[in-house]
């Protein structure tokens, strides 16, 4: 019997049958709508089809404003202190007609950020979030230094959803 098993490769035939089964399934389902089941292919056609992100996805740091368009941040420096990679630098200042301290400068070095969300967790005023942007590449190193001003990516783009991403909720 073992001789027969050596001569006739049932083991290899089993593996070939499995891969052949998947070939057939994908071949006949390649044109159809992609459903995430075992039967279909798993390719996500990313730039064309948007990516589903979980609601808790940790993307780029964003400074929030309240309904009046005022910056919510009150310069408690909690985020600056907790940040493990020290990417946040805040300069305290005053602004006319505002009781709370006002951030004159809120700099964020994105190239060192590790997206751990400790800053958001430490913030007692809900004034920062990590949005859902994950396409953060730029052509220049300077573009990673994000501040309150600046043309490229500045801290006020509050888009919770990136250009190629869709939040699940």
């Amino acid at each position, binding site marked *: 019997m073992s001789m027969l098993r*050596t*001569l006739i490769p049932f083991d*290899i035939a089993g*593996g*070939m049958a*499995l*891969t*052949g089964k*998947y*070939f057939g399934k*994908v*071949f006949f389902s*390649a*044109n*159809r*709508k*992609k459903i995430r089941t075992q039967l*279909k*292919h*798993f*390719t996500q*056609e990313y730039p*064309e*089809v948007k990516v589903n992100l979980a609601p808790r996805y940790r993307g780029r740091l964003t400074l929030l404003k309240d309904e009046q368009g005022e910056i919510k941040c009150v310069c408690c420096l909690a985020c600056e202190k907790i940040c493990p990679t020290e990417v946040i630098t805040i300069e305290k200042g005053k602004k006319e007609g505002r009781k709370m301290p006002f951030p004159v400068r809120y700099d964020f070095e994105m190239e060192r950020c590790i997206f751990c969300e400790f800053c958001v967790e430490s913030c007692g005023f809900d004034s920062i979030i990590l949005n859902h942007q994950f396409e953060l590449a730029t052509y220049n190193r300077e573009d990673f230094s994000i501040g309150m001003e600046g043309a490229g990516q500045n801290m006020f783009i509050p888009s919770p959803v990136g250009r190629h991403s869709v939040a699940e909720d």
Partner: protein
Amino acid sequence: MPTQAIPMTLTQTLIMGVIQILAVLIVIFIIVPLTTFAERKVIGYIQVRLGATRLAGGHVGITGPMNRIMWGMGKVPMLSILRGLPIFIADALKLITKEDIIPAKADRGVFTLAPIISVMAAFGVFACVAYYPGVMFYMPKSWPVIGGLPFQGFITDVNVGLLFILGLASVGVYGIVLGAWASNSKYPLLGSLRSAAQIVSYEVPLTLSLLVPVLLSGSLSFKDMSVALSTGKDLNPLAIIPLFIGFFVYLTCGFAETNRVPFDLAEAETELVAGFHTEYSGMKFGFFYLAEYANMIVVSSLATAFFLGGHYLLPFGLQRFIPATMPIIGGPSFFFFFAKILCILFVFLWVRATLPRYRYDQLMDVGWKYLIPLTLVNLFLAAIIRFAF
């Protein structure tokens, strides 16, 4: 079959020869890139993904707007199977335009010669492969010199064609060994030593398994053998047993001869980086690539002609049960041959996606301890069937 019926002058012979060679070369140069495309697609589908999709299936072209609409609906575009098709043109362009690097310490002459040897050996074999046993069509009468001449399904019919094929095919290993040695690098050296040992040991069972059809058909000419074996007129009914075993042994050895998985030790990607062609780039690498795929086509052609019934429908000489008078399936057709080649090429890709790789010593074990005894027994069986019954 009227092969030599029409007497030809020397000029006519030469021109027809060139035309037929060109025809075969063009077919190869179409099939090889398509095989590389199919390789991406087939392995992609087996691995539950889509394979190459970025070319001709994206935003541009005729299907662009439609695709964008379908993506907008969260669906995959129609014609997914053909998306990415122009990638074979892109592959070729990349290989041709890429910088051709010769390492500083390499032996320049041999380094350049090696891929040429490989590709010559691989293409030379096609001279004796018969895709159709006879005249495929006649040249139009109105054409100047060659009007009315037959276009045959083979370039030439040598009476020891099989020996020629086997001999030339084993020259290919020189390309690998010389190229690896000339690149003066360690990983290629290991790859080439493996390849040399592997091809030398697998020549034996390969040839022994091909002796079964030789014995059963009583000829060494490619054309005569394929006709005798596929029509099965003079074959003993029991001949199907040695042919069947011989087919699988031959295919196994063919995998080894062409350095394909599970015998791809010479280039074993995860062990030797890229094996013998680690130092090659540009079109020199392209030649090795071309030679590998041309060899795959040769192996498929031989398996088709000798075991799978060649240009007839049914394999293993079973064609005799179909009367020759039946409309399509009764007679020979070039398309049967072609379809069978494609099927075997598919098996090449299928196996590549499924099986792990043998180790060097185990490869030798399989060759010498299993395949050679098996082929000898098989040959003995064929001899008994041929002469005793």
